[in-house]
């Protein structure tokens, strides 16, 4: 078993607003091993970006408040660190890739300098010439042709996909152990998206980096993730390996997410399953299970008591009362079950 790199324990993040205190993250726990990719999925407002930003300590305080919990990186808790200490962690240990490559780069600086800036800042012994050499190597690594020429160009001379490659090169500049990618491909075309995903997996293989991948696209999750955490209303509601989540989903919210994607392979033309309603107000989080009002399988207890994390298997957990031994047996909705069986059958056939 590889080494545990990151451990988040019962993390709580609040935001003070005029309307009241928003509980954006309400007790999130997960762990990440070296060389592993964890995908965090959920709707907007589910707290996935707040969770990832909080690991980098990018939550502005105020209005943000670290209301509880630990973020153990290599055994050290990041929550009490000062801004100065944190600056050493950022870039060196943990780096971030942002969603929009258009705004993540400085339009008035040559691309090369934006990379060497990071290298020089984090390593005082490196000379400028060495930094340049490294930057060009990085550009080459992320698949930018003619890196020497590109080094001297400005961001506007790059296309969207090429810019995202530059952003990745900057993130990699100080050899981080953990990469946090917040919707890195959402702004890109499918073909470019596929290239960027390949690139990230490639880099991971070479340098054994761990990746936290935030996205709302389940197709992308299936492509990159080893493990998946499904977030809803500031909590992780289902957690497991990618196969657990896609082939044996237990939480009705996960069913809803899977069902809202059209099934291309099995060519079913039935109506898409939707999750009725909208996410709850996190200033006054509902009593009991936050998903209950949108859950067609909700029981009386869902409105009274918050469900604990039930263990499904060694790797698979879900936070729903449906897994309680006394709960009625609710099968996976038929359309989703059919789809899963279709996928598994195909995989079996092609495996032969």
């Amino acid at each position, binding site marked *: 078993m590889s080494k545990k790199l990151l451990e988040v324990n019962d993390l709580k993040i609040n935001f003070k607003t005029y309307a009241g205190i928003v509980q954006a993250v309400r007790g999130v726990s997960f762990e990440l091993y070296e060389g592993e990719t964890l995908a965090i999925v959920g*709707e*907007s407002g589910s707290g996935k970006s707040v969770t990832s930003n909080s690991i980098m300590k990018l939550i502005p305080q105020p209005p943000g408040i670290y209301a509880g919990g630990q973020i153990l990186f290599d055994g050290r808790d990041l929550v009490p660190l000062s801004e100065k200490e944190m600056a050493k962690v950022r870039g060196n240990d943990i780096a971030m890739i942002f969603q929009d490559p258009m705004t993540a780069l400085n339009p008035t600086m040559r691309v090369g300098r934006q990379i060497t800036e990071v290298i020089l800042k984090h390593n005082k012994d490196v000379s400028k010439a060495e930094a340049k050499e490294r930057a060009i190597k990085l550009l080459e690594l992320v698949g930018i042709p003619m890196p020497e020429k590109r080094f001297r160009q400005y961001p506007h001379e790059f296309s*969207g996909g090429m810019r995202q490659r530059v952003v990745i090169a900057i993130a990699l500049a100080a050899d981080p152990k953990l990469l946090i990618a917040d919707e890195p491909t959402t702004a890109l*075309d*499918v*073909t*470019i*998206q*596929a*290239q960027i*995903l*390949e690139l990230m997996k490639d880099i991971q293989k070479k340098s054994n980096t761990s990746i936290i991948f935030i996205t*709302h*696209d*389940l*197709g*992308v*999750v*299936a*492509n990159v*993730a080893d493990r998946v955490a499904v977030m809803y209303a500031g909590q992780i509601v289902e957690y497991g390996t*990618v*196969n657990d989540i*896609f*082939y044996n989903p237990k939480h009705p919210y996960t069913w*809803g*997410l*899977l*069902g*809202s*994607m*059209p099934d*291309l*392979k099995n*060519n079913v*033309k039935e*109506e*898409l*399953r*939707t*999750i009725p309603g*909208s996410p709850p107000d996190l200033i006054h989080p509902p009593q009991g299970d936050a998903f209950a009002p949108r859950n067609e399988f909700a029981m009386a207890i869902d409105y009274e008591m918050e469900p604990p994390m039930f263990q499904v298997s060694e790797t698979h957990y879900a936070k729903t009362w449906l897994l309680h031994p006394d709960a009625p047996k609710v099968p996976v909705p038929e359309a989703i079950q059919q789809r899963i069986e279709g*996928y*598994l059958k*195909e*995989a079996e056939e*092609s495996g032969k």
Partner: protein
Amino acid sequence: MANKLLEVKNLKQYFGSSANPIKAVDGISFDVYEGETLGLVGESGCGKSTTGRSIIRLYDITDGEILFKGKNIHAGKSRKELKEFNREMQMIFQDPYASLNPRMTAGEAISEGFDIHGLYKDKKERREHIGNLLEAVGLNREHANRYAHEFSGGQRQRIGIARALSLNPSFIIADEPISALDVSIQAQVVNLLKKLQKERNLTYLFIAHDLSMVKYISDRIAVMYRGKIVELGEANEIYNNPIHPYTKSLLSAVPLPDPLTERKRQRIPYVHEETDEQLSVHEVLPSHFVLGSDSQIKKWTK
């Protein structure tokens, strides 16, 4: 076979100087039949949105002909004819945050068309109609008095749809109507569009870059690349039997919610092939069209 509602013939839309124009749309032809959904896909910058905007007369076209119900839409028109045309064809926009006026209530946004066309002058009748439209898109009558910022993204898009429906159009151009929304909300909006199509016998031109949703909602799909339609055919046919290498490449990049296949995914890169030969549209299979030179088509269909 259903009637042709819209015929686009050799449409060209150039921008910039005439000496060195940017050919956003470079000679495309297609038909849209009554009651169907035609999906238009391609990467950003391929000209798919420009095509939609040219059809609804937001641009003066450079060349070609667009016939709607047999009439040329860009031919000289009186104000009255123009208004009639505008009632027939409406658009749903991509960004539900940008497409609603923040100073108007939902009711005002929806009923703006009534003022322009002098409909429902009676207050009570008007309120009734706004209420009906809101209910048709799954909102409440009471929502008419709320402002745009009081709605979520999915609800705003529903208002955008109600506004497009307000004049009872027969043809709707939906330009990336779901790309700005969350997955679960996307499904709600797509289901709504399908339901409305059935109830009101609408015809859609559905422009998107998300191939999986396009395949789900469309009867036929047209794939655009660099201002040209490179392949056009039935949705299933395009998906299961793509001929043009660009379509193949595009399809090979769509991620599916199925980890076992995803781990084995082989992306097919697309290398654009310049030829000196004349490009033309070939009907390789019944109602499956591919753009290419004779020798290219021979190579691709092998």
